[in-house]
Each structure stands twice: as C-alpha cells, then as structure tokens.
C-alpha cells in the first residue's frame, strides 16, 4: 500500500496500547478461575468487537448507524447455518427453500464458518450500503433503524431458514475467552489500520468538514461505503463469535436494546476515536457487572437489591450523568496515542481549540 514508515509506527502503537491491556485483563480474569467472571469477560470482549465495528463507520464518518447489530445478527445466523452438524439439520430445518437446500448436507468447521459469515455480511453491507450511505444526519439514523427492523422481521418470520421465533439450537459452542481476545485484537488492528491509511483518513476528513473534503476531490459516498462495509463486517465478526459463544439465540438477542447500548457505549467512550470505543465498552460493562453483582448477591456492606430492572435503571442514570457532564465522552474523541504526541510538541500547543 506504500504507507509511510511513520504510519506503520503509529498503527503499531495504537494497536498495542489498546490490545495489550485487554490481553492482560483477560489473563488476570482467567487466573481467577471464576467461571462467571470468565464468561462476563468473554461476552464483554465480543461486544467490544461489535462496538469497534460501529466506530469504524460512525466514529470515522460522523454518521449515526443503528444497523451494526443487524449485521451481527446476520453473521450469527449465517455462521450457525454453516456450522450446525449435518446430522442435526433435517430435524432443525425441515423446510429449507430450494435455493438453500444445499445447506442441509453442508457443514464447515467453526473458524471457517465465521470467516464465511463475515464475508457474507460484508457483501450484504456493501449492497445495502450503496443506497444507505447517501443518507446523513437523522435520515441516516432512521434509514439504518429501518434496516434493523427489516432484518429483525425477516429473521423472526422466515421460519424455514431461521427457525422464526424459536431459538436457534445445535450451534457449536466453541468461542472461548481466547477466541474473544483474538477476535478483538484482529478487530482493533484492522480498525486502527483503516483509520490511519488513506481511505479511513479521507472518511475522517469528510466527518471533519464535508465541503472541504469535496473541495480536494474526496468522494464522500465512496469513502462512506468503504467504511460502512468494513465496519459492518467487523460487527459481523463479533456477531458470529457471539453466536458460537451462547450457542442458543433468537432475533431478540440482537434487538433494539443491544443496538442502543452499543451506540451509547460508543458515545460515552467518546465518538470519533477507537480508544473511545474500547474505553466505552470497558467502563459500561464493568459498571454493569458491578451493579448486577449488587442486585443478585450484594457486595460487601451493600445488601442484595432484588428488584428486576434496578441494574439497568442505575446504569442508565450513570450514563445520563456521563453525557451531561462530559458530552464529548470519556476520551473526548481522542486516541490514546495523542496523549503521548501532545507531550512531545507541548511548547507549540498554544491556547485551546475552539
């Protein structure tokens, strides 16, 4: 690609600074040997992949999307359909439509299934992206939300292929904490590379100032389509891993609640930076687990508070406070690497930007 050395160095720094602490965290959790903590860490890391995917499009383009969970859902179902053992298929999917009949006698190992699911998700994203990326602002929000509804309805009602409202069962349960760690490392590495190389930087330019971007020959729909396709594929990676993690799921697993939580985590972390995506998920997830522990078993002197909804309620309240006190999110939309860079050029950092 002919990237400059400096670009590669910055990529390595950003990826390392984000991934290494996550690996350390995962190892520490693993060493506790506590199954429930390992499970929580795994699902948090998988969720983080979806949020990194969301950041890759929304963070870099500044255009809101509610569709990343829809792509996670598509990937989870695709990978499930590809990897469920052949012997179970006739009883699970007795009425496959003619163009999908080959699925009944077809099964691949889970890693391959995940890869194929990610590729398929990327393809779907590319196709629906051609019209969708032309929308901006609230229209983009509604357009992607409408897409989420369409996917949800199809998944819920297309019984022959998705088992409809019944849960998907027989999905190989293979995702472990280590798979999740590898997944997030790949997602972060790709997302970091994308935003430092020319396509990503053009998309960021269009976010910063659309008119200026056009004035130097940047085609905003094309750059958005790239970011959208890549971001949706990354979200697909998260979705496929999640499918093989929980093994039984339905459309409601990937509903509005998850959608809005992923968007909220991104905004709370700080929209516009990969660091924000990672930090947002970590902070919200740790907080949620902490509250859930109080709700179900109490914590130290705090008694058990067994009201359904109390965890979500307090979590929402805290999210609200973060947004009110720090509207630009915890990181303010800056990457972890800029803290180092800023120090380097400290004498020139005059005044505040407006």
């Amino acid at each position, binding site marked *: 690609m002919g990237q400059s050395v400096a670009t590669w160095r910055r990529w390595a720094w950003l990826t390392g600074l984000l991934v290494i602490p996550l690996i350390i965290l995962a190892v520490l959790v693993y060493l506790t040997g506590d199954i429930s903590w390992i499970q929580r860490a795994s699902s948090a890391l998988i969720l983080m992949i979806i949020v990194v995917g969301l950041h890759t499009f929304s963070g870099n383009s500044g255009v809101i999307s509610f569709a990343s969970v829809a792509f996670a859902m598509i990937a989870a179902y695709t990978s499930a359909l590809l990897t469920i053992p052949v012997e179970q298929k006739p009883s699970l999917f007795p009425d496959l439509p003619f163009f999908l009949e080959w699925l009944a006698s077809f099964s691949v190992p889970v890693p391959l299934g995940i890869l194929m699911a990610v590729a398929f998700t990327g393809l779907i994203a590319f196709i629906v992206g051609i019209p969708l990326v032309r929308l901006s602002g*609230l*229209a983009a929000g509604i357009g992607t*939300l409408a897409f989420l509804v*369409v996917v949800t309805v199809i998944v819920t*009602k297309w019984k022959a292929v998705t088992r409809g409202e019944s849960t998907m069962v027989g999905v190989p349960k293979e995702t472990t904490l280590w798979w999740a760690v590898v997944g997030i490392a790949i997602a972060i590495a790709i997302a970091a590379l994308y935003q430092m190389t020319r396509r990503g930087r053009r998309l960021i330019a269009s976010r910063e100032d659309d008119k200026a971007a056009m004035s130097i020959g940047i085609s905003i729909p094309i750059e958005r389509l790239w970011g959208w396709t890549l971001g949706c594929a990354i979200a697909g990676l998260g979705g496929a891993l999640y499918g093989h993690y929980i093994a039984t799921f339905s459309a409601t697993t990937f509903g509005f609640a998850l959608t809005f939580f992923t968007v909220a985590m991104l905004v709370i972390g700080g*929209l516009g930076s990969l660091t924000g995506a990672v930090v947002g998920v970590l902070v919200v997830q740790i907080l949620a687990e902490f509250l859930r522990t109080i709700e179900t078993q109490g914590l130290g002197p705090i008694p058990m508070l067994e009201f359904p909804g109390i965890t979500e309620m307090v979590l*929402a309240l805290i999210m609200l406070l973060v*947004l009110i006190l720090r509207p630009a999110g915890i990181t303010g939309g800056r990457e972890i690497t800029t803290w180092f860079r800023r120090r380097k050029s400290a004498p020139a950092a005059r005044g505040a930007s407006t």
Partner: protein
Amino acid sequence: MYLQYIIDSIGTGSLYALMTLGLALVFSVMGLMNFAYGQLVMIGGFAMILLRSQPWWVLILGTVVAVVIVSLLMERLAFRPVRTATAMTMLITSFALAQLLQQAARVAFGANPRPLEQFSELSVQYTVGDLYISRMTLITVTTTLVSVVVLALLLKRTNIGVQLRASTEDVEMSKLVGIRSNRVIASAFVISGVLAAIVAMLFFSTRTNVSWSSGESIVLIAFVGAVIGGLGSMVGAALGGFLMGFTYTMLNALLPVELRVFADAILYTLVIVVLLIRPAGIIAAKGVRV
C-alpha cells in the same frame, strides 16, 4: 370491503399522526429527537391505571398533569445541560433517559404487564350500510383533528406560539429580540407532554394492560413518522405519522396471508425508499438543522 379497510386505516393513521406531533414540536425548537417521548406515553398509561376508579375528568386531568410534570423535569434535568452538544449526544441522552424511565417503571410497577380495566362505553360499534365504525375510531379521528387545529392555532395566534416559531427559525436572533429561550423550550415540552398524555389515553383505551415496555414501539413509529414526514414542519410530521399508520393497516389487510407476517419489513423498506428520494422528508421545512 376496501372502504372498511380504509376506515380502519384512517383510525390507526390518526393515532400515529398524533404520536409524531409531540416529538416533532420539540425537535423543531431545539433539534432534539426525544427518544424518551414514548416513555411519557407509558407513564400516561400507568397514571390511567392509578386513576381508573376516579371520575373521568379526574382521570383525564390527572394523566395530563402527571405526564406534563415528567416532561418538564426531563427538559430541566437532562436536556438543558446538553442543549449545545452534538445532535448525536442529545439523541443518546434521550435514549439513556428513556432507559432510565422504562427501568424505573419496571422497578416501580413490576416486570409483568399491569391490567387496565376496559372502558366499555368506548367499544360501541356503529353500522353504516355494511361498514362498521367503532366509537373509538371516531374519538381518535376527532381528537387528532382537534389537536392539530388547536396546535396550529396555538402556534399561529398566541405570543408563545410566535416566539416558538421565531426560535425554531433562528435561535440567536430570537435572543436578540428578547425571547427567553428557556421558557420557550419549556413550553414546547409542556405541549409535547399534553400530546403524549392524549396519545396515552387513546392508545391504552383499546388495550387491556400497560407494561413498562409499552413506550418502545410507540416512539419508534413516532420517530420514523416524523422524519419521513418532514421534521420542523408540523403538517409534515403529522402526515408522516398518518402515512405510517395508514400504510401499515392497509398492508396487513391487503397482503396475502403468507406475506402478512412481513408487513413490518415491507413498511420499513418503504421508509428507506422514501428517505432516499426525499432525505429531508415528504414536506421539508426550510432551514431546519438536521
């Protein structure tokens, strides 16, 4: 046969139109898409349960007052501090607020839906030839028409209405002529709250229960309707909501049975098509920040 479908669709469409109005009004004065609007309707539903045994005028008044108070608190505590933040931050703030209210209702009223005793006097059916018109449809259509007219008169004829419209067009200039933006925005939230209470009363009168999650589907419809209709224009918003309800009911009536389950998918695909053709909505208002 078709006429019957159209009558039913007009009933649903009117209710949806009313849902979008309150949302669009707040959007037009402060550029906020208030996701917590659906929770106002939900709160109205619970207020109805608590006041069910009271005389009808107490029930109506109590519901309106309860919803308006929550609407005002929302503005003061959550939205005023983020008024100058990005549209995205405001949107997510309203989402967090919606979560907070929803979960608070779950904690307060329990996870299971609470039954709401039916209003038997509303379920009367009238027969005209071979057409059926329920009293509820008539009430809904009338209420919507009256609300739209009252809102139009309010915006057109009163000082606060003129100030609201001035602020909608140019916030800085409206400050320069001495309009107190805090008061104007608060009054938009009051009107929005009244509309949400009316929606709650119409909506839950035909349902048998109220649940903490009741507000979710309502806000989705209102949100989508307001955007495709045209934000910042009240007529556009009402039209968008009406079309959502009308089209949905017609699709359910006219689609062949095997496709009927996909009515939502078809409706939302149509929404995407409308957005692509007219990103600013069917009736686009000039100079609205999106």
